[in-house]
């Protein structure tokens, strides 16, 4: 399965919210959709789920125009909420039935998921009697109970304690293993790095960076060395403005040309008392800040 968005445009009134959004996500892999608040992630997701039409562009599944009658979507919205005053089993079954399940299979599936997420004992309670984290687990069931082909999770980990986060991680891995397309949107970069093979960073309605996460990282210029030494002052004095101090007191030496790496390393090892030298590998967080801030 391969989901492609091509040149999606969307305007609300005079305001153009999306300007040619394109990215592709594969089945059996997780895709990270990143961007700052208001960048256009939720609008992209809503267009993908056919809540409203795009002004331009197309959405393809396996190369053909997506047929919403055949493709099942599961969605955990960032704005959580269900019916606070209704019984959990009633509303979960209702949502699953709305997605096309029969009553019987909906009840069966919901019961499976309630047990899977350790929520079986709350089956016949009202939603508003549950804690926030547990309500979130209940909401996750609305996204998964009908066994959708495409699962969209918007900030799935926010508000979960470490034990529940672990449980959710297992569930997400399970969904990926089943060959589904899992679309992640989150500001917690560590989770994106843990799950996602590909990402797209949206900034002000445009995709500013997209592709395989490893490639993205590898393509990031390898022009910084991290140096740990017992005599940082000496090195700083010798290297001048190309040397900075990182948050954890390590030195960061910026190379004017990446090819100088070998010679600079040699010079450091020969002249100073060095504990460790390594090439700086950016985290997704670093990349995100750089790309999301740049054009803002």
């Amino acid at each position: 399965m391969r989901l492609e968005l091509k040149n999606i445009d969307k305007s609300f009134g005079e305001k153009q919210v999306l300007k040619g959004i394109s990215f592709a996500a594969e089945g059996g892999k997780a895709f990270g959709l990143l961007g700052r608040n208001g960048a256009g992630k939720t609008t992209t997701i809503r267009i993908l789920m056919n809540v409203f039409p795009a002004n331009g562009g197309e959405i393809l599944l396996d190369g053909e125009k997506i047929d919403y009658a055949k493709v099942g979507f599961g969605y955990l919205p960032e704005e959580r909420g269900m019916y606070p005053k209704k019984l959990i089993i009633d509303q979960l079954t209702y949502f699953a039935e709305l997605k096309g399940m029969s009553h019987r299979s909906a009840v069966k599936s919901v019961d499976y998921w309630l047990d899977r997420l350790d929520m079986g004992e709350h089956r016949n309670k009202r939603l508003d009697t549950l804690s926030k984290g547990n309500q979130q687990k209940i909401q996750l069931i609305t996204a998964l109970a009908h066994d959708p082909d495409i699962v969209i999770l918007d900030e799935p980990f926010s508000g979960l304690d470490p034990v529940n986060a672990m449980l959710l991680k297992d569930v997400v891995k399970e969904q990926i293993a089943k060959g589904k397309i899992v679309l992640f949107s989150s500001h917690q970069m560590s989770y994106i790095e843990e799950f996602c093979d590909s990402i797209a960073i949206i900034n002000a309605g445009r995709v500013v960076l997209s592709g395989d996460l490893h490639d993205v990282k590898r393509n990031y210029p390898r022009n910084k060395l991290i140096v740990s030494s017992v005599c940082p002052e000496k090195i700083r004095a010798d290297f001048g403005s190309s040397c900075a101090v990182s948050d954890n007191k390590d030195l960061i030496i910026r190379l004017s040309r990446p090819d100088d790496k070998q010679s600079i390393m040699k010079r450091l090892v020969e002249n100073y008392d060095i504990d460790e030298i390594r090439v700086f590998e950016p985290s997704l967080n670093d990349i995100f800040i750089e790309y999301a801030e740049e054009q803002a």
Partner: protein
Amino acid sequence: MNQFGKILKFELSGYLKNKVFVGVTVFLVIAITIAMFIPNISAMFKSDEEAVPDVLPGMLVYADDPELSSMVGQYFGEAFPDYAIMLADGSLEDVKAKVVSGDVQCAFVMDSLDSYTYYVNNLSMYDANMHTANSVLQEVYRVTAMVQGGMSPEQAEKILSAQIQCNAVTLGKDQMQNFFYTYIMIFALYMVILLYGQMVATNVAVEKSSRAMEVLITSANPTSMMFGKVIASCLAGLMQLIAVFGTALVFYNVNKSAWGDNIIIDSIFNIPVSLFAYMLLFFILGFLIYAFLYGAIGSTASKLEDINTSVLPITFLFIIAFIVVMASMGSGNIDNTIMKVCSFIPFTSPMAMFTRICMSTVPWYEILISVAILIGSTIGVGFIAAKIYRVGVLLYGTSPKLGNIIKSVWKS
């Protein structure tokens, strides 16, 4: 269609599980049951009262001329069986004092046979004593005059008590008879639409403010959502009415003998089948068209508190229609121009056309046109409401302006 059925079922069960809804229905059923037993209950108390005869209130008759006073006393004795008639002696002041102290309830002070002053401590709104006294005195005066003119008292009596034979044959509609169920239907429609309309609007706004909408809008078609919700509320309303009026009908039949020949109650329960069918038709269509509007308004409100002000325009529209119909019913001139116009406008026709059908003779083609317009506009309003809903539910923050909504609905 499948989705619509599921939404309908979910929404309807929502009403039926709602404690307030069930509570109100049970209360109404009990109230109407008690009301239907009223004649039996009051008969029970009445028989007790008759077993212990009361002391009759006193009525004084006073005149300077003792002959006049005894003659009037005699006539009043027959005319006022609920009073103990006493002839007063003493002065006018004594008579007044007795009235004020409560020894007697009232006093007639006669100047002559055709002139008197009535004394009473507090004049009740329903005091008919003067009216009775006038007719008695008038008759006495006339008989006396006729006898003086040479007739025998029997002849004079006969002339004065002559009865006119009359019969009314209604070729069209009997407004008097149809008035009551028209009134009840209009009032029921008024109550139910205001109540349920508000419920539909609140229902939509709750989904929006609790953000359940985020999941719903990605799971179900907005048109199915809107129609499912509104038709569910209509069914819930009908069920409530059937429960209340069904109970009334059952217990009316149980107590039929006790109700006797009460014209009002009789006319309500003997509504002709054709009128009942019209009532149902106009009720359902009228309910739906307003419920769609309320649903659409509910979807544009961001907070529950906004609902009350947002629905005001619809409520006003509806109240105006109600007042026009009620005023026309009261005036007796049902087929006036305003009513004729109103009976073709979709938002007023459920009440106006039904009233005209009940209380006057409306040509069949007018009914057909009115119903056709109403059905067409109800469906149209339903689809527009669904579009507003689709746009409205995703707008948070400040309530959107009407113009903006129309613009985005037009575009989508």
